[in-house]
């Protein structure tokens, strides 16, 4: 397993942010900028994926990856829910809310993974961006279904919720940029490429600096994070990521895409799902699910998870 990636500036900025927050520095990135960097990264990755799919054309493998991604997003919440109830001792509402996060994906974990894989000479296929977008929302439905079986009073009409979930800003931007990239193709993308390519890694550095600050501050202030759920927040990415790698190699993807599949399955959402849960399950504790997803799973994935899934993918596809 190669941990060279840990010393790339991108990851070091994450470590710097976390260290600053633990030391109680007042360093902070304005919220408007953090949100904008997030919009920029999603647009850039969406465009890039679309341009690549335009170049490669549609294939059966693409379809297989898409279906597998949707299936994983739907199914991964179930074992997570059971573990959260039994081992984590959470009530059905909180267990359902948390489970939804682990079925879904983290855009920035994926982006960081793509950087690391690219640097190792095994970039994932362009259509993995579409898989990313497809995996964002199915788990929300699964998580809500699990929570409601457990008695959560859903006063919100289902249609409304579906709309709000599918039209979450991050999903719309990712899908929209993918489509624009696909329409524009390599030639149409060329004039805007300098902005979306040259700046990409630098923005990722500053964004991960902020994520480090946010993750560490959240960890410090997390009241509801018991030892048991913190442990689950470390186990989920490992198991889900391994499942993702297995599924990816089963459908015959290349090593880079298999690793990306593992990263997607192992990551936990911190944008689309929290927003949906706040709306659909307001009784669930945001302090809990954000602490698990942002303050434990995200740092684990960005530092150790990505090299682990990559190593696994290389072994499995060798």
């Amino acid at each position, binding site marked *: 397993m190669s941990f060279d990636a840990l010393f790339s500036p991108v990851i070091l900025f994450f470590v710097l942010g976390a260290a600053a927050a633990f030391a109680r520095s007042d360093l902070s*990135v304005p919220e408007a900028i953090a949100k904008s960097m997030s919009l920029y990264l999603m647009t850039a990755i969406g465009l890039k994926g679309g341009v690549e799919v335009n170049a490669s054309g549609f294939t059966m493998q693409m379809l297989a990856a898409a279906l597998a991604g949707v299936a994983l997003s739907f199914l991964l919440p179930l074992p997570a829910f059971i573990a959260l109830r039994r081992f984590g001792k959470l009530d059905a509402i909180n267990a359902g809310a948390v489970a939804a996060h682990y079925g879904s994906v983290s855009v920035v974990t994926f982006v960081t993974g793509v950087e690391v894989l690219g640097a190792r000479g095994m970039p994932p296929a362009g259509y993995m961006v579409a898989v990313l977008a497809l995996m964002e929302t199915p788990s929300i439905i699964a998580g809500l279904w699990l929570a409601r079986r457990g008695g959560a009073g859903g006063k919100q009409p289902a249609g409304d919720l579906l709309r709000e979930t599918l039209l979450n800003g991050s999903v719309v931007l990712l899908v929209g940029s993918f489509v624009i990239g696909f329409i524009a193709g390599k030639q149409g993308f060329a004039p805007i490429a300098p902005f979306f390519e040259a700046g990409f890694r630098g923005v990722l550095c500053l964004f991960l600096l*902020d994520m480090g600050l*946010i993750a560490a*501050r959240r960890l410090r202030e997390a*009241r509801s994070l018991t030892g048991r759920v913190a442990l689950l927040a470390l186990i989920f990415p490992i198991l889900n990521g391994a499942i993702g790698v297995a599924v990816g190699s089963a459908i015959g993807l290349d090593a880079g895409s298999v690793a990306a599949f593992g990263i997607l399955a192992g990551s936990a959402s911190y944008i689309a799902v*929290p927003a949906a*849960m706040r*709306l659909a399950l*307001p*009784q669930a504790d945001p302090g809990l699910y954000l602490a698990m997803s942002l303050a434990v799973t995200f740092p684990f994935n960005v530092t150790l998870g990505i090299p682990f899934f990559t190593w696994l993918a290389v072994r499995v596809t060798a």
Partner: protein
Amino acid sequence: MMQLVSRRRIEVLVDAPLARRIVAMAASVGVTRYTLMPTLGGAGEGGAWTDDQISGAQAKVMYLAVTTQQKAESLIEALTPLLESHGLILMISDVNVVRGGKF
């Protein structure tokens, strides 16, 4: 000097994603005029929070409406069941306004 009339000032601290729902609920009991104000952070029973997060799921906004005693009562009644489940903070105070017809 113009006539000052007495009204009720209702403030509700609500999670940003749920604000739309409070606005709709207030409108359903006739309180259609309001202003939303930003917040930076705070602490309560549920621990501390700040607005520096990417997800925005835990950012909060302050809903402010000035209305008659009667509509205020309807609004409070409508909101009460949500206080616990949605984690709302509700404050009511007295305020004077000119042009009472507008409120």
